[in-house]
């Protein structure tokens, strides 16, 4: 078999059969070597497949040459000229040919083509003009060059969040704040008729009177009480029912509710749209035969790296990745070879450790709950010392931050004992951290609500505890405001007080401790969790604190520069690199989880909990949602019945059934496609083996001595005793 296999090995007498295969036409090399024995060990001479030099070659080869050239163009008619794998001159010639062909078409088609052409040009020019408006283009370019595409995806994610928050702020501002601002200046008349009387409507003012000590202002600024409470910042200020403009009436409560739903919906659509490309790529990945080694070798080197340091680190990280993969391969073999006794031991150990993790989570949640209740009670009777007062106010935030600091360390320590494969370890730890972070906000809100809706032993008169919380939405808004401010302070403080000293310590101190601690790594997952946490707070809080998206925009804007500075000055790239492709998808999945989690409190508080009667736009309604059915009932008859029909049960059930059917169909289609792909892959393998077999047979037949006349009669010049004068492939 070996002698026959030599047809595939490069040698001085390369079998010209291989070169003539149509599949090699796509691999045209741009060789201009003329004359025999070029620079490479190609025995046969090649001349350039160029119409200018064609004149000298034999007529039969010219014909063959043209025919060979024709085949690629007919195949590539669907592709634009720029996508052809040819050198520039050939592309230009193709372009000219196509334009000449186009001239033969009718005038209408010509006009159509030229219109399309100029539209494409216009789109390109516009795209270039718009790219100048792109925020932080230059900064992100620099980061990409220094640290690669993994960290780049973090910063473009941050930029996306800035834009998202800015758009949400514009929505809130345009539909909720602007009408009120205009009424104060100009034509409108803000009316509001209080329906309820009695003690539910008492709202003692919290602004300070008399001689105010300066530090009270700081406390107020940091916790949203006092002079900040009765401003546009909080829900309680929007005490308006309708605004009468000269031409129409503007229903502010309706706008408030609808804008809340609109911004949640807008966020969902924008995130899903952004994750669509990443999701498609994830589906293409065949999980059964995933090619981790090929990926690393052929798609592992980031061609964008321009920094010597970064290149060295990238090589080390690739080395590390390959070693990890080999390690994973070994561990997979080990798992396959586990005995039943070992399996039992592992499963019992995992169960125990998971119970331990659940216990830790429960302990954290309980401490957040108690801290919130303590903080709420302390705010009723604030202590004299204003620092202590601030600490009591920020106690829930501090406990949440502390829990979110300790638990990842604990989780990454525990998972070592659970004996999973390295890739699964990372993902599982991450999922636990995500759950911890986002659930802690939920626990905080739950404990707040339990305070708000508990009135001691009796039933609540107004549906909520009106003595302690005359305007409970503003109070919830204040808690969200405090969480956001504290988060921002922590990001800044950790950078200044932990990362900078660490860098100085590690650089200038030569002791063993410095070497063990090492330089800071930019840990992408933890940073992403941080900003998703902030965004979840913004989504929940925007209903209670309409200016929160604006604060969030400014916060993320500053965080970008803080993170960029710490990246450039303090960090070295991670030894465990984060894959760019899956990272975008991962960020958006975590963000979606945050959005889903944010929707729950907002929906519950709009639909379920009684709105406060002392403040806000929903004073005259029982719950915030009531304004919508009321507005709908005031619509003209046809629209009214239509909307009522949409929200009825019959329609909802039908809708769900139809959606379920559509999903089932799409899943079945995907399964069918996967089967077809597998079949085609097997077919491809079989064709390859066929090709090998046939070529070997041909080679054998060539090698056996036959009468020369027989060879010359073979059609198509396939069998050649000598190498041909020109070869069609190597250009």
């Amino acid at each position, binding site marked *: 078999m070996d002698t026959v296999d030599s047809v*595939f090995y*490069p040698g001085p007498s390369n079998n010209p059969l*291989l070169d003539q295969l149509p599949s*090699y036409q*796509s*691999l045209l*090399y*741009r060789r*201009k*070597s003329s004359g025999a024995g070029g*620079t490479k060990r190609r025995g046969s001479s090649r001349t350039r497949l160029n119409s200018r030099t064609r004149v000298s070659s034999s007529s039969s080869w010219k014909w063959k040459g043209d025919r060979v050239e024709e085949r690629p163009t007919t195949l590539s008619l669907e592709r634009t*000229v*720029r*996508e*052809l*794998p040819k*050198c*520039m001159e050939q592309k230009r010639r193709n*372009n000219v040919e196509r334009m000449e062909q186009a001239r033969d078409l009718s005038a209408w088609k010509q006009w159509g083509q030229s219109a399309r052409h100029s539209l494409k040009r216009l789109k*390109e020019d516009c795209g*270039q003009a718009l790219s100048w408006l792109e925020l932080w283009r230059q900064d992100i370019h620099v980061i*990409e*060059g220094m640290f690669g*595409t993994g960290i780049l995806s973090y910063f473009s994610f941050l930029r996306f969040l800035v834009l998202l928050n800015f758009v949400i702020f514009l929505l809130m501002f345009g539909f909720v704040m602007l009408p009120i601002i205009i009424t104060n200046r100009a034509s409108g008349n803000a009316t509001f008729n209080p329906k309820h009387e009695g003690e539910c409507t008492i709202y003692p003012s919290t602004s300070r009177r008399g001689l105010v000590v300066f530090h009270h202002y700081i406390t107020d600024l940091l916790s949203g009480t006092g002079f900040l409470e009765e401003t546009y910042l909080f829900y309680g200020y929007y005490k308006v029912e309708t605004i009468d403009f000269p031409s129409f009436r503007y229903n502010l409560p309706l706008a408030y509710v609808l804008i809340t739903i609109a911004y949640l919906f807008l966020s969902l659509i924008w995130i899903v749209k952004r994750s669509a490309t990443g999701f498609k*790529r994830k589906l*293409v*990945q*065949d999980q059964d*035969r995933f*090619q*981790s*080694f*090929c*990926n690393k*070798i*052929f*798609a*592992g*080197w980031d*061609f*964008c*790296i*321009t920094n010597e340091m*970064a*290149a*060295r680190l990238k*090589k080390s990280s*690739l*080395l590390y990745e*390959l070693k990890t993969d*080999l390690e994973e*391969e070994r561990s997979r073999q080990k798992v396959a070879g586990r005995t039943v006794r070992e399996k039992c031991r592992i499963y019992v150990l995992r169960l125990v450790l998971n119970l331990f993790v659940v216990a830790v989570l429960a302990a954290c949640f309980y401490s957040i709950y108690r801290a919130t209740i303590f903080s709420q009670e302390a705010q009723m009777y604030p202590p004299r010392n204003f620092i202590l007062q601030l600490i009591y106010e920020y106690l829930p935030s501090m406990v949440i931050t502390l829990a979110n600091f300790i638990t990842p360390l604990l989780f990454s320590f525990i998972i070592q004992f659970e004996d999973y494969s390295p890739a699964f370890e990372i993902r599982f730890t991450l999922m636990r951290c995500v759950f911890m972070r986002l659930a802690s906000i939920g626990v905080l809100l739950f404990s707040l609500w339990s305070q708000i809706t508990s009135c001691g032993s009796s039933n609540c008169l107004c549906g909520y505890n009106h003595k302690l919380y005359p305007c409970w939405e503003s109070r919830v808004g204040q808690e969200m405001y405090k969480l956001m401010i504290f988060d921002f302070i922590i990001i800044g403080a950790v950078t200044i007080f932990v990362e900078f000293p660490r860098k100085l310590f590690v650089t200038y101190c030569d002791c063993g401790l410095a070497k063990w601690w090492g330089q800071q790594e930019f840990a992408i997952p933890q940073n992403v969790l941080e900003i998703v946490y902030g965004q979840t707070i913004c989504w929940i809080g925007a209903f209670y604190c309409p200016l929160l998206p604006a604060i969030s925009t400014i916060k993320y804007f500053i965080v970008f520069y803080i993170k960029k500075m710490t990246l450039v000055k303090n960090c070295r790239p991670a030894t465990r690199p984060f*894959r*760019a*492709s899956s990272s975008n998808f991962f960020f958006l999945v975590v963000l979606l989880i945050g959005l889903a989690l944010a929707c729950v409190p907002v929906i519950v508080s709009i639909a379920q909990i009684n709105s406060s009667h002392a403040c806000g736009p929903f004073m005259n309604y029982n719950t915030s949602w009531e304004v919508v059915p009321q507005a709908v009932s005031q619509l003209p008859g046809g629209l009214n019945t239509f909307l009522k029909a949409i929200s009825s049960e019959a329609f909802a059930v039908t809708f769900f059934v139809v959606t379920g059917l559509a999903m089932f169909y799409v899943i079945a289609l995907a399964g069918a496609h996967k089967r077809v792909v597998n079949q085609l*892959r097997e077919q*491809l*393998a079989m064709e*390859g083996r066929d090709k*090998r077999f046939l070529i070997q047979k041909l080679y054998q037949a060539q090698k056996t001595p036959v009468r020369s006349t027989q060879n010359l009669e073979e059609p198509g010049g396939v069998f050649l005793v000598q190498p041909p004068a020109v070869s069609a492939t190597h250009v």
Partner: protein
Amino acid sequence: MGNKQTIFTDEQLDAYQDCTFFTRKEILRLHGRYHELAPHLVPMDYTNDPDVKLPSALIVNMPELKENPFRSRIVESFSEDGEGNLSFNDFVDMFSVLSEMAPRELKAIYAFKIYDFNTDNFICKEDLEKTLNRLTREELTPEEVNLVCEKAIEEADLDGDSKLSFADFENMISRAPDFLSTFHIRI
């Protein structure tokens, strides 16, 4: 557009815009970069298509390519003589294929050429070993190198000839999610 540039005629710029993924501004900028590699060799006036080629040694020292372990192979794959001497057309072509907008199929063709060190239209085990050594600064032991190459061929080889033909390579690339984002040079 009112740009009073005299480097290219309008038809040339149109042709470049059609044949590459760059806009006019970017092509002019590329010409500036090409020129500053060898100011005395490269003319500022390209209206009559001068036949100027820059040697490979100048191109591989560009900041975008300097740290790339495959820089010599990249330049060789786009040169007409296989030695790495690039004319301006080849230069623009190279960065066009490596830009963000080039489609996956086109990039796969050139990636195959780059990784095929002995230019025999197959990526055999020696090619893989060379690639691996360039990627990891030769810090893997020979057994590990052998093992990794074998596993890579096992993953991608479809027709069972223990080396990768272009069909195998293209099939593998279509399932490599990182390829489009890593096989990309910004200029």
